[in-house]
């Protein structure tokens, strides 16, 4: 099986530019330079690549709104969203630590496709090893004439700047990220105007996730056909899937889009001895719980959505029978309440409210009214009611837990205690 993302990935000692080029690295970028930018856009669109950051929006479609041509603004920006902070998600760190040049090549292709001469990699500050390796890769690429003015005589020039964030989950939201890069408080912006038209410093800007960009070299080098053949599911390409929690061997695997969650669990060696799977979040903290019965579903955008959750980042979090579902939801909601930017009411004040209720409930001091209030809060913080997707993301595990683990909640209320607490 082709593993275009990870076949040359080495977490101990990533390839330097020579080694990367020796196995065909930067061929995709050089192939792109041979074509008109619109042609590159077209290929990416046809490839069917969907964003790997969580929302699953078609990458080519996103690019389409960038003004192109002679009338278009001269200054445009390409931004790699490497602010990986979704709990249970660690794939981008793996890619950046293990294959920094792959990401750079993806950035270069995307920048060329939209006509951006400046790119930023917006990296979460905690990923220091990534920062060192990416910076080294950038320096190597500059040295090799793959960055800078007039690259390989193409007339296209590009600089890549590594920006290390000072830490905020909301920076992963693309418009908040723009504010963060502008040195402002990272509140999300209203859309429209969309970043493609009015983005960083008011210029046309594309923000793509790190893993998404890593897909581009393969598409440009091997073509659309090849890319689509990587997977036989409705979604094209491969994906870095992962699992964490009380499994035997938590980790990441590059697999064709649409493999089953059960397969991923089996690659992890199943649950730890003596632990049983009670439920799982398919793609990070902001996705709805699914149950063991859903394990055979393909991990694709549509199939998971149909089951009532979201593929998200593809980082599965497994809840075992040794942990309290109420406690897990409390931990998740605490995360979201802590990371709310404080801009809109439902998120800023609704999340701490839910945390307050769950905190009591977890220690057996909740009531039936509290359960009703939690349901109301789920509705209150749902899509369209908040300014951005942070609070609706927080609602997903909460509302599904209320549904799937209703008995556990009821037991906390009825017995006035949590059986997982000693």
């Amino acid at each position, binding site marked *: 099986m082709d593993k275009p993302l990870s076949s040359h990935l080495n977490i101990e000692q990533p390839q330097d530019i020579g080694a990367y080029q020796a196995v065909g690295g930067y061929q995709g970028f050089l192939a792109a330079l041979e074509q008109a930018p619109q042609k590159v856009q077209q290929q990416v669109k046809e490839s069917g690549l969907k964003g790997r950051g969580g929302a699953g929006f078609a990458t080519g479609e996103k690019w389409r709104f960038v003004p192109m041509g002679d009338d278009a603004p001269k200054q445009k920006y390409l931004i790699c969203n490497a602010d990986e902070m979704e709990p249970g998600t660690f794939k981008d760190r793996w890619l950046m630590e293990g294959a920094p040049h792959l990401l750079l090549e993806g950035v270069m292709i995307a920048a060329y496709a939209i006509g951006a001469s400046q790119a930023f990699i917006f990296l979460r500050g905690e990923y220091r090893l990534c920062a060192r390796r990416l910076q080294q890769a950038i320096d190597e690429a500059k040295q090799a004439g793959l960055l800078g003015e007039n690259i390989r005589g193409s007339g296209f020039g590009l600089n890549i700047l590594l920006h290390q964030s000072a830490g*905020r989950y909301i920076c992963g939201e693309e418009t908040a990220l723009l504010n963060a890069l502008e040195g402002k*408080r990272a509140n999300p*912006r*209203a859309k*429209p*105007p969309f970043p493609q*038209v*009015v983005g960083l*410093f*008011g210029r046309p800007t594309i923000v793509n996730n790190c893993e998404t960009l890593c897909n581009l070299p393969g598409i440009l080098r091997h073509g659309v056909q090849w890319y689509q053949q990587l997977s036989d599911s409705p979604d094209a390409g491969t994906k870095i899937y992962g699992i964490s929690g009380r499994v035997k061997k938590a980790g990441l695997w590059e697999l064709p889009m649409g493999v089953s969650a059960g397969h991923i669990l089996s690659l992890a060696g199943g649950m730890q001895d003596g632990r049983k799977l009670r439920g799982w979040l398919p793609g990070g903290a902001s996705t709805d719980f699914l149950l063991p019965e859903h394990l055979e579903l393909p991990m694709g955008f549509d199939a998971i959505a149909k089951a009532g959750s979201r593929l998200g980042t593809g980082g599965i979090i497994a809840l075992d029978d040794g942990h309290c579902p109420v406690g897990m939801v409390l931990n998740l909601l605490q995360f979201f*309440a*802590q*990371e*709310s*930017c*404080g*801009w*809109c*009411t*439902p998120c*800023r*004040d*609704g999340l*701490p*409210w839910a945390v*307050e*209720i769950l905190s*009591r409930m977890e220690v057996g001091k909740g009531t039936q*009214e509290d359960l009703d*209030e939690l349901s*109301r*809060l789920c509705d*209150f913080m749902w899509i*369209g*009611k*908040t*300014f951005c997707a942070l609070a609706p993301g927080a609602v997903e595990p909460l509302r599904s837990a209320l549904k799937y683990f209703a008995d556990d909640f009821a037991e906390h209320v009825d017995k006035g205690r949590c059986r997982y607490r000693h």
Partner: protein
Amino acid sequence: MPMSEKVQIHIDDKSYQVEAGQNLLQACLSLKLDLPYFCWHPAMGSVGACRQCAVTLYKDKDDDRGKLAMACMTPVSDGLRVGLGGKQEQGFREQNIAALMTRHPHDCPVCSEGGECHLQDMTVMTGHHARHYQGQKVTFNNQYLGPLIKHEMNRCITCYRCVRFYHDYAGGSDLCAQASKNHVYFGRQQDGVLESPFAGNLVEVCPTGVFTDKPFNAHFSRKWDLQSAPSVCGHCAVGCNTFISSRYNSLRRVNNRLNPQLNGHFLCDIGRYGFAYANSPKRLNEIKLNGKPADWSSKAVQEALAEGNWIGIGSAQASLEDNFALQQLVGEENFVPGPEPAMWPLMAMHLAIAGQKPMASLAQIEEADAVLILCENLNQSAPRIALSVRQALTNKAKDKAEELQVPRWQDAAVRQLQSDNPVPLIYFGYGEQALQRQACVFCVCDDEEAARQGFALANLLHNRAPQKAGTKVSAQTHQAADILRQAKKPLIVSGWSAGNPGLLAAAANIAEALGDKAMLCLVADKANSVGLGLLAQKDQCGNPEECLASANAGLLVLADHSAKSRRWMSKITEQARQVVHLSALQQEGNSSLQLPIAAEGECSATRVNYQGYAQPLWPAVTPPGQSLPAWQWLVNLAKTWGHTLGQVEDLRQLRARMISVFPALQACWADIDDPIALQTPRVSGRTAMLANQSVHEPKPPIETEAPYRQSMEGQVGKGNSQAYSWWPGWNSNQSQHKFSQERGDLSAALLITPSGQGFWWKWQSAWQKINGYHWHLLPYKGVFGGESLSLEAAPIAELCPAPGLFIRADDAALLGLSEGDLVCCDEDSTLFELRFTDGVPPHSLLYQIPANHGFSLRGCELVVLADEAQRHAYQLARDTQRAGQAKDQQAKLRQLLDQDRLIPVRFIEGMG
């Protein structure tokens, strides 16, 4: 932007026609429908933060589920189907309030916002009444923000309006959002006085009690206990519309009265807090003869006022009525338009130009797409205009937004677009103000050079415009010409603050050269400078100094409280037989007889703003002690003289005489058959003053001429003639938001009709300054302390900076002086703190001095460092002054509070 196109929308299955281009929240409010909101503001647009104005949008008739959306972020469009009163949206709105209430304290009884709190109103509106949340509330520390604003962060509901107003709208940089999640904090980096001269608006912008009016808190009353009247600010020539409010016959506060043409929703701090001069310890409450209390009917007073040769000196700080009565009494030939001869040519020039071209209103100023300011210290002379100019700077970003299919009211998008779509601001002049920092072309020069370049600019724009021979046209002037040529709605601003009529002429020439597209705004000196000028226009006492010398005349003076007038006054009073001041404040020296007159909010009056609009203002209290309106004293005097003015029995008759001279005033004072109620229906819910004895209350004594009734009886009032802002369910000043579109009709009359005929002004040698000084001293007033009446208001006096001398850093280096040094000019005794700025023309120094401090040098040879003894004396004097101010203020406050206790008793017959 005119929005005349209409669209049809359906709200809860009823159809309405609303103006296109606005958002749904605005549309609902204009239809008088109730929809709660916090972060939206009619002047500041939408950001979608509070999520309170949720409605359900339906795709079509058959859609029965709909989708929740924020009305403030939804443009109205033809056929839009909206659910406003359905379970889904109502439930959400209630829950949203409930979420805000997880942090908001239930301290309404002790909160000064209580009873006029937008949050209270909105909470009631959603039906939320009981708290479900059981956790701890987040609490914050408060900051000291200066004498104007009190900070109480625990009440914050995080709507972001304060920083959107203070930082984004008004350009203040010392109030920002800090921290995040439910710990977001609105404050300064550390305790300290808020720097913006618009900070007072936070009181009204904040939907609850985070930012409250500190002086009002010190002598507090609930809104429903206040007696309010429509008034007009008396501290500059703009004439912002206000409500002035009182209780127990003492003035308590001023807040904004919406006038879409002028102040809109905001006032400057001088306008909001300056009224307190009426409560100053220096207030004159009784007749004083040679400094001692005297009786009107006493022989000494009557002798002092005996018929004879009198010269009347008018005042731009006094009303049109007062000046008119004085002019009538002494005769036109003996009437002097104010005690500042330097202002007379400015007055004449202003009126001549206003007779040609209309003066742009603030609403028009906000439409400009290029702005030229010709040496006018707008920040001080008309802060509210500076704020409007600042709004004009967003116009190109708004146009760009529309081009991108984003509505103009999408505030965040517009601000995002502003740096790349700037409205050019051109500044010729000196100083360092917020606006100058935003100028794309800034030519540092003095008033004379600005006037010369202005003439040159007009000449570049139109070859028939006269030029001053020998002017070297600056590069900035060429740039300005290019910018103004391309502009569609260029605005030219100048005014009286530099004291040079040439600037007005230059501005008029530039406007003339640009043709019909140009807007012109000339800022007059004081609240009624233009009104005074209109009277003087008739015929003017040629040279009062000569008149005095030849005729052994007495002086009847309507007080002008600025120190600038003192020098000339002291010169002419030396020759006067008798000096009689009609003043609200005690006069120092020079005056033999002082008659106490009504101050702001104490009598009906009329002032004429910079545009020539006469605006009436009505009293909220009666004048204290023996005080009368100045015109009333003059009428009384006329009676003793047997003068025809003595036939006037009341204000109505005086005004009838004024109408015969200025027919346009008819509109201003149009009789209202059905008087307007001064008290809101909420007054029915308050506790009667003497509740322990009777629910009946004595009628507050107040003028009968006002078209207002001292009760709930009467009509609510249309347009901005309303006496208070209230609407059922809307107790805060934000009830005005519901009427923002229908307040166009002003009960104001334009006294100057522009002819529209073009005219080119020629350069006059009188506009050139006297050369020969090493350093030219240019006046540069500060916001606080630059205006003399407000300087007698305690909170403003506290903010008045020490005298400052501004110098270029390189000049100071040559002199061996450092920033903060205490210096004086030549032999003059005034000590200045030295400050550095780049905005000083060559060979010049800018001096900033409180308006009540005399300083008359126009140039000097040396800047002298103060010696140790001087420094010591200076510090001592300042400390003493501060301590004195604080003590006086405390004493006055105590007196007012004592008076409150006595008043109910005083009102009962026989117990006063």
